[in-house]
């Protein structure tokens, strides 16, 4: 039995959405009408331009409420979370100690041109995030935080030199899709250098989902609100499992 779900304004299935955008035209009543028609072409019905005004010469800004008739089957969607392994720092350290038998070498960086290290720092720095200690605090992890604006080539070079077990790439801010391009460049370079299978490859950032990570060739993706222990547990469990299966490693 499928359960179709659409936007909820104040009543089930009313399909209400809000959107806003800028048009490169001077404001006029015709500009409001242009915005209304544009929303109609997007497939929305009952389009109301609730705000339309000039924001500079040649530019107008609009706020719109409208209705969509679209709906999706939520039950039919599979989007497994990578943060499913709930373990404490002590449990994770113990798991690594028993199943890996040496320290896990972790490297993380904000790749490409991104200088927003808040996310990667929250995961790696000793202090951690929301009372959950970062990976630097783990006894069984040897953690390298390479900081911001690290070139993909540099990160791969470091990975090979230090024989990194788990690689964390972060992207917070994007400009015309640069985050996806950078993530892709990293996984492709690891493939090209024949070391992709040697690392647990993880991406993170506010718009990253585990589903997206899979599409980009990563082992996992972590988004908003991720705790360091969720990432640590994924690394420990995945690495232990790979070793158990006798898969090639450094």
């Amino acid at each position, binding site marked *: 039995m499928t359960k179709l779900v659409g936007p909820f304004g104040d009543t089930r299935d009313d399909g209400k959405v809000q959107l806003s955008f800028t048009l490169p035209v001077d404001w006029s009543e015709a500009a409001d009408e242009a915005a209304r028609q544009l929303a109609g072409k997007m497939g929305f019905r009952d389009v109301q331009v609730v705000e339309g005004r000039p*924001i*500079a010469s*040649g*530019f107008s800004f609009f706020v719109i409420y409208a209705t969509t008739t679209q709906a999706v089957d939520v039950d039919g969607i599979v989007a497994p979370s990578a943060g499913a392994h709930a373990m404490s720092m002590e449990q994770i350290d113990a798991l690594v100690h028993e199943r890996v038998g040496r320290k896990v070498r972790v490297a993380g960086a904000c790749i490409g041109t991104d200088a927003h*290290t*808040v996310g990667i720092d929250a995961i790696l720095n000793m202090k951690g995030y929301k009372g959950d200690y970062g990976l630097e605090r783990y006894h069984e992890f040897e953690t390298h935080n390479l900081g911001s604006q690290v070139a993909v080539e540099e990160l791969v070079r470091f990975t090979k030199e230090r024989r990194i077990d788990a690689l964390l790439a972060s992207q917070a801010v994007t*400009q015309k899709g*640069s985050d996806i391009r950078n993530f892709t460049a990293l996984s492709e370079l690891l493939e090209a250098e024949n070391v992709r299978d040697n690392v647990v490859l993880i991406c993170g950032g506010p*718009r990253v989902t585990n589903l997206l990570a899979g599409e980009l060739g990563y082992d996992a993706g972590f988004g908003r609100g991720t705790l360091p222990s969720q990432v640590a547990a994924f690394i420990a469990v995945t690495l232990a499992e790979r070793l158990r299966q006798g898969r090639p490693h450094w």
Partner: protein
Amino acid sequence: MDLRIDRRSVERCRDLAGAIVAPVEAFIAAHSTVSVERAVLRLLGVDGITPQEVPLPNAILDAVAPHERARGVALPFGKALAETGLEPAALGAEIAAGRCGLDQFATTPDAAARGALAGFVDRALDRIAARREERAAWLAELPQLPPPLLYVIVASGNIYEDRVAAVAAAEAGAQVIAVIRSTGQSLLDFVPFGPTTEGFGGTYATQANFAIMRAALDEASEKLGRYVMLTNYASGLCMPEIAVMAAFERLDMLLNDSMYGILFRDINMKRTFVDQHFSRTLNARAGIIINTGEDNYLTTADAVEQAPAVLASQFINEEFAHRAGLPDAQIGLGDAYEIDPDREDGFLYQVAQAQLAREIFPDAPLKYMPPTKHMTGDIFKGHLIDAMFNLTSVMTGQNIHLCGMPTEAIHTPFLGDRALSLENARYIMSTARHFGDEIALRPGGIIERRAHDVLASCEALLERVAAMGLMAAIEAALFADVSRVPEGGRGVDGVFERAADYWNPFEERRLALGRPG
């Protein structure tokens, strides 16, 4: 508002900053860098690139032997001017084309070099003075709106696209436009040349790009009836050269921090100290307001814990700036609104810090940076946090206000994002314009106690730094939890000891004028 701070503690902090900076100044006076020497060439009128696209100042300096370089590039260049009778730009082109070598004129007397250069030195200083007078005339004719001056960033990578965004932002209320640089430019040991249309996360700082944006903003200023300021970023490996370009193209502000490059870009500390000094002497001459980068302490570590480091850095930046001849009115000390929004009374702490800077640096045009660290994809909450930041700024009398974007954590701002952000700031700053004048802070209350604690901790931190020396303190990670060693970092190869007869004609001119302030 009055925090009733301990004025003796403030004096003590200033004395400590003086004690911290004095030994560094001695180091600065005994050294030069490749970027300082390239700035001298740029001041003299050398510009352009070689057929291999090497900027001429780099090509010329690279051709000077190290022992000769230790005396400063002005002497060999001046000798060649004297012997060839060429103008600096033409001589630069000849050298670049390989038709002339500076080593040909080694036997020419120094006096001939000095004589040949004198007119060009005057010309450079006149050129800078003319830009400064132009700015004064613009401001007299088209005064700015009252502070906080609303400051926004454009960053498309394409200077012509940036121009459209900048003019739109000015029309929406922006009073200062920053063209953020292409990522990584701060680590280039040369300045790119010509107009540029591709960049990464920003647009290259080139003299041609400066001129394009200045012309667009001048036109917008005329139309709006108020002068719109332009700013860019000096910090990095080319601080002195960017200071020259900014002076020539009438930029009004420059990001110029005495320690940012060291801590946050891993640029060699000796390089940075020498470079920041010469670049700031040029900023002083040009009437350019520097903006310091204390906000970086807050984005990389906990904002509540880092408050004393921010204040300590402000004292140190002030001291370095004074020693470069900058008056208080040109020292835009930085701070940022970065306390975790989930923290109860976080707003009170922000007010305490902002007001503390206001009372300690009453004549400095304080630069206030928006929340970035705790901004998420929730643009609605982000807009609210920005509103509280705007309120803090207007009630504590900040001067240069970088508007926060609701989409801070999402993408480089859309044109519409800037308009929403400016509208937020204009609304809050109008509706609460004189709020700060109307309220008194409760003696012994949370805000006052916080300010007193921060000042006391800052004094203790400065005591430690003074006892160790600044370079050792940086190595010991006393700032931003980052450790840098004196011989480490980028650009260390470009630092060299001055020979006993080192000569920089522009430095000589400044010293002859005496130190302002």
